[in-house]
C-alpha cells in the first residue's frame, strides 16, 4: 500500500496546524526565557511589551492550533479510511471468493476489517506526529544553531536519537522478545483452549487439577520470559531523558563559553538552555508513534497482499449474446485449480439439460464445490470448457452467468439484518407477498408468521438467532426468490443431523419445481430422489489425478 496515496490535502493542513502548535510551545518557552533574562536588566517595561504580547499569544495559540490539528487530522484520516474501504471492497468483489483461496482462513474478513481500520491509527498517530516533529525539530535546530552552533548540533543529535535511534533499538528488542514470548504465548493459548473446551472430559475423569498444574508451569515460564525482556522496556524512556538532559546541559556549557567570549548576548543564554525542554515535549512522543507504526505496517502489508491478488476469471472483451432459455450446461474435459498448480479437478464431463435433477456425490475434497464455483463463474476452468447452450462460459460476463445459474452453498451467508432485508438481497424490489411466497416454498412461512416481528425479525450476526434448519431454509427461500433457472444446492453436512438434512433436501427438491437442479450431497442414498447420480473422485488422497465423473444412469 502506497502511504502517500492516503495523504489528502486535509492531512497537510493538519501538519501545518500541528507544527504551528508545537512551534507555539517552543516559542512560549524561548520568548519567556528571553523576557525574564531581559527583565533582569531592568529595562523600561515598554521595551518588553512585544515579548509580553508574544508570550500570551503563544499561550493561546498552542491550544487553539492543536485543536485545529486534531480535527483536520482526524477528518483527513476518516476520508482516507472511507476510500480505502471502497477500494478494498471493489477489489474483493472482483476476486472473491476464488482469488482469495491462497488466504483462505476463517478470520479473513475479520482481519481485513481490522487492517483497514489501522489506516486511522497510521495517519493520526504515526504519520502526523512524525511530520509535525520533523518541521518543529528542524525549526528549533535552526533557531538554536544560529545562537550557538554547538548547542544546535547537540539538539539535532538528540532529536535524531529519540526520533530514529530509539525506535530502531525498540524494534530490535521487540523482535528478540517476540522470539522468546511468542512460542510461550502460543503454548499458553493452546493449553487454555484445551482446559476450557475439554473441561467436561477433564472434570469427568478427575484430571482438571493436573491440567491446572501444567498451565501454572507455562504461565510461570511466560512470566519469567517477560521479566527477562523488562530490561529493554525502559530503554526508550531512559534514552529520551538522557537526550533531553544533555541537550540542556551542552546548551548551558556552550552558552557559558559563548557568553564569556562575547559571541552571545547573556540574555539569550536562557533561550539556548530552556528551549530544548519544549522541543522534546513534542519529539518525546515519537518512540510510541514508531511502535504503533510496526503494527500499522503489518496491517498495510496484508492489505497490499490482498489488493495484489489477480482476478480468477477473465471478463470477455466482446461479450457473446446471452442465450435465451431453456438452458443446457455442459462440462467437457474440465479441470480446475483454486491455487495455480494444485489441481482439484481433472477431465470432468457433465451435462445439465433443462429440468434435469442431478446429484453430485463424492468424498470431501473430491471437488464437488469446485464444480459449483465453475458453473457460477467464480472460477474459470484450467482445462477443457464449460458451455451454456453451446456458448463458452468465458465469453459471457460473469455477472450475467449468475443471473441464470444460482448457487446455494453449504454455509450460505445471512447478513446481520432482518429476514425481509436478507430476502430482498435476491430481489431488491420484491413485495412482502413475494417474500411470503418464497418462504412458503421453503416451508418457513408458518414459522415467520408466528414470530412477533414477522418479516422484520432480526436474524443476528451470521444468522445466529436462528436454528441451523431455519438458517438453511431462509437461505433457500432467498435463492428461490431470485428466480434462477439453474440452481446448485450444496447440502449442509455440519451442524445438522442426518434426518433433518434429508428432510431439508426433500423440501428443497420439491420447492425447486421445474428448475434444473444440481444437488451436491455426501449421502449415497440420494439416488431415489433424483434423475441421475454423478460420482466424483473416489480417492481423497490423490487430488492430482481425480477419475472422470461420468454420468451414471439412475
Amino acid at each position, binding site marked *: 500500500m502506497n502511504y502517500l496515496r492516503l495523504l489528502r490535502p486535509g492531512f497537510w493542513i493538519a501538519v501545518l496546524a500541528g507544527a504551528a502548535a508545537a512551534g507555539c510551545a517552543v516559542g512560549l518557552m524561548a520568548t519567556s526565557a528571553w523576557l*525574564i533574562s531581559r*527583565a533582569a536588566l531592568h529595562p523600561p517595561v515598554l521595551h518588553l511589551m512585544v515579548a509580553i504580547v508574544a508570550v500570551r499569544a503563544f*499561550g493561546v495559540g498552542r491550544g487553539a492550533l492543536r485543536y485545529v490539528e486534531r480535527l483536520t487530522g482526524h*477528518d483527513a484520516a476518516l476520508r482516507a479510511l472511507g476510500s480505502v474501504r471502497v477500494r478494498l471492497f471493489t477489489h474483493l*468483489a472482483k476476486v472473491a471468493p476464488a482469488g482469495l483461496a491462497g488466504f483462505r482462513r476463517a478470520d479473513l*474478513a475479520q482481519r481485513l476489517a481490522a487492517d483497514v481500520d489501522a489506516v486511522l491509527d497510521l495517519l493520526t498517530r504515526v504519520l502526523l506526529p512524525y511530520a509535525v516533529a520533523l518541521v518543529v525539530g528542524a525549526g528549533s535546530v535552526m533557531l538554536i544553531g544560529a545562537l550557538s552552533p554547538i548547542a544546535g548540533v547537540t539538539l539535532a543529535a538528540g532529536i535524531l536519537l529519540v526520533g530514529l535511534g530509539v525506535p530502531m533499538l525498540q524494534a530490535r528488542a521487540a523482535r528478540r522478545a517476540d522470539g522468546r514470548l511468542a512460542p510461550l504465548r502460543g503454548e499458553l493459548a493452546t493449553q487454555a483452549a484445551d482446559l476450557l*473446551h475439554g473441561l467436561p*472430559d477433564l472434570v469427568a475423569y478427575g484430571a482438571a487439577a493436573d491440567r491446572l498444574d501444567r498451565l501454572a508451569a507455562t504461565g510461570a515460564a511466560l512470566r519469567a520470559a517477560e521479566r527477562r525482556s523488562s530490561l529493554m522496556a525502559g530503554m526508550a524512556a531512559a534514552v529520551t531523558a538522557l537526550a533531553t538532559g544533555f541537550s*540542556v546541559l551542552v546548551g548551558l556549557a556552550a552558552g557559558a563559553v559563548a557568553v564569556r567570549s562575547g559571541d552571545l548576548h547573556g540574555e539569550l543564554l536562557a533561550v539556548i538552555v530552556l528551549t530544548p525542554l519544549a522541543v522534546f515535549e513534542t519529539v518525546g512522543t515519537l518512540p510510541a508513534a514508531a511502535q504503533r507504526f510496526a503494527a500499522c505496517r503489518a496491517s498495510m502489508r496484508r492489505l497490499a497482499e490482498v489488493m495484489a491478488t489477480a482476478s480468477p476469471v477473465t471478463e470477455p472483451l466482446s461479450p457473446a449474446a446471452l442465450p435465451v432459455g431453456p438452458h443446457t450446461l455442459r462440462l467437457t474435459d474440465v479441470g480446475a485449480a483454486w491455487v495455480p498448480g494444485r489441481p482439484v479437478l481433472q477431465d470432468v464431463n457433465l451435462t445439465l439439460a433443462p429440468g434435469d435433477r442431478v446429484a453430485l456425490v463424492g468424498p470431501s475434497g473430491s471437488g464437488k464445490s469446485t464444480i459449483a464455483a465453475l458453473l457460477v463463474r467464480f472460477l474459470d476452468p484450467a482445462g477443457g470448457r464449460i458451455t451454456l447452450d453451446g456458448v463458452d462460459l468465458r465469453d459471457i460476463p460473469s455477472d450475467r452467468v449468475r443471473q441464470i445459474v444460482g448457487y446455494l452453498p453449504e454455509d450460505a451467508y445471512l*447478513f446481520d439484518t432482518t429476514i425481509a432485508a436478507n430476502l430482498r438481497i435476491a430481489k431488491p424490489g420484491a413485495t412482502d407477498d413475494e417474500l411470503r411466497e418464497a418462504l412458503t416454498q421453503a416451508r418457513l412461512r408458518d414459522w415467520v408468521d408466528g414470530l412477533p416481528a414477522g418479516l422484520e425479525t432480526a436474524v443476528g450476526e451470521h444468522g445466529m438467532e436462528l436454528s441451523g434448519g431455519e438458517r438453511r431454509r431462509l437461505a433457500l427461500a432467498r435463492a428461490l426468490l431470485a428466480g434462477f433457472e439453474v440452481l446448485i444446492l450444496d447440502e449442509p453436512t455440519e451442524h445438522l443431523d442426518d434426518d433433518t438434512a434429508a428432510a431439508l433436501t426433500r423440501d428443497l427438491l420439491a420447492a425447486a419445481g421445474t428448475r434444473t437442479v444440481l444437488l451436491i450431497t455426501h449421502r449415497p442414498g440420494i439416488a431415489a430422489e433424483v434423475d441421475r447420480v454423478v460420482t466424483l473422485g473416489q480417492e481423497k488422497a490423490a487430488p492430482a489425478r481425480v477419475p472422470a465423473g461420468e454420468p451414471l444412469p439412475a
Partner: protein
Amino acid sequence: MKPLDPRLLRYARASRAYLAATVALGVAQAALIVGQATLLAYGIAAVFLDGLDLAGLTPTLIALAAVIVGRAGIGWLQEAAAVRSSAAVKDELRGRLFAQAAALGPGQVRTGEMIALVTRGLDALDAYFARYLPQLVLAALIPAVVLARLLPADLVATVTIVLTLPLIPVFMALVGMHTEAANRRQFRLLARLGHHFLDVIAGLSTLKIFGRAAAQAGNIRRVSAEQRRVTMRTLRIAFLSSLVLELLATLSVALVAVGIGLRLVNGDLSLQTALLVLILAPEAYLPLRQVGAQYHAAAEGVAAAEEAFAILAAPVAPAFDSISAGTIVFDEAVVRYRDREVLRLSATVEPGEFIAFVGPSGCGKSTALGVLLGFAALSDGRVSVGGVDLSGVNLRDSIAWVPQRPYLFAGTIRDNIALGAPADADVKAAARLAGAHHFIADLPAGYETMLGDDGAGLSAGQRQRLALARAFLRDAPIVLLDEPTANLDAATAEGVMAAIRRLAHGRTVLMAAHRPELIALAGRVLDLTPVGAR
C-alpha cells in the same frame, strides 16, 4: 472507571508491591525535577549576571549530569518494574481464572470469551501498569513537591499555580462528563459501522451470487461518509476537553512568566528565582494533563480486569465427597433449562444392567447422563445412588464417560488415553480392548504421536475408539455412553459396538442411543419421549 480498582490490589498481590515502588520512584523523580530546575536556574543566572566562566560552572554541570542520569535511571526502573509487575499480575489473574473455571465446572463460563480474555484481553493491562498507574501517582506527587519548592522562593507564583492547578481536574470532570457519554455513543456507532463493513465482506460470495456486490461499493462509500460526519461531530466536542486543558496549562505558564517578568523589572525578584519558577511551572501542570491522555490506553486493560473480576466473583460450590456405585434411582427427576423442561425421568437401574435411553433429539438423553456426572442440576425430584442422595456428593470417581464428541488434548495419544489415570496405567491393553491399538500402531510414532488441535487429523471413528480406550483404562463400575456411533459409517460403527460389548461386561451401562443396532445392545430400553409427544 475508578482511578484505582481496589479489587486489583486484592486479587493480584503483585500490584501492591508495584504501587509502593511506583510511589517511591515518583518521589525520587519529583525531587530530581526540582533539583534540575534549581541547578539550571543557578547556572544561567550565574553566567549571565555574574560572568561565571566554564571552570566555575563545572561543579554545577557535574551535578546537572548526575541529575540527568538519575532521571534516566528512574525512568528506566519505572518501565522495567511496570513490565515485571504486569507480568506477575497477569500470571496471577490467569491462574485464578483457570482455577475458577475448573471449580465452576463445564458450561459455566463462556469459553470463547474466556480464552480471548486470558490471552489478548489481559495483555491490555500492560498499558495500565506501564503508563496510567505511574502517571496517576506522578500527578499527585509532582505538583505537591514542585509547589513545596516554589513556596519559599516566590509566594505570588505559588499562589497563581495553586489557584489554577485545581481547575484542570475540575474542567476535566466537567468536559469529561459530557464527552464520556458522547464517546460511548460514538464507539457504539463506530462498532456498528465497522460491523457493517465486516458483514458485507464476509457475505461477499452471497452478494455476488445475487448480483448485488457492485451496488454495495456505493453503499460502503455512503456509510463511511456518514461515519465521518457523525464522528467529527463528536470529536469537535471531545477535543474541546484537551483544548481547555492545554489553554489552562499554557495560559497559566504565560501568566506566571509575564508576572515574574514584570516583578523582575521592578527588582522585586532575583533572576535565579524567576528562572526557577519559569522552569518548574510547566512541570506542575504536565503530569495532570498526561493522566487524561493515558486514560484511554488504560481503559481497555481495566475493562479486561473487570471482566476477570466478574468471573472470579461467581460463587463456587464446595467440593463434594465421593461415593461409590450402587443401585441408581431416578425419582421424578426433573431438569429445567430457561423454564423449559428438558428431562423428566423415573427409573431404577440395578448394578450390571445395560440401559439405553431413546427418544427424539432434545428429550433429555444426554441430560440424564449429565445429572449423574453432576453437570446438570436437578430442578425437582431426586436421584440416589446406593441409597445416597446425589445432591451434595460426587459420583465421578465411579464413572467412565464417553461423550458424543470426546475432546482430544494437544499432546501424545498415550497422554490422551491416560486421562486422569495413574502414571503406570497399561495404556496399550486399554487401546487393544477399545479396538484402537491397530490404527495407533500403524502411525509412524505410535502411541507417542502428537495430536493437533482437538485431535485434528483423526477420523470420527478413531476419536471414538480413543475415548473408549480412556473408558477401559478408567475401569469404573458405571459407564455412560452418549450416542457413541453418531457420525460413523456402518463398518466403523460395527467395530465400535464390539468394543462397547466388551466394555459393558460386568459394568452398569447407561447409554443415550438413536440407531436401532446400537439400541439392540442394551438389556433394557427407557423411552424418554415426553408423555405429551408420544
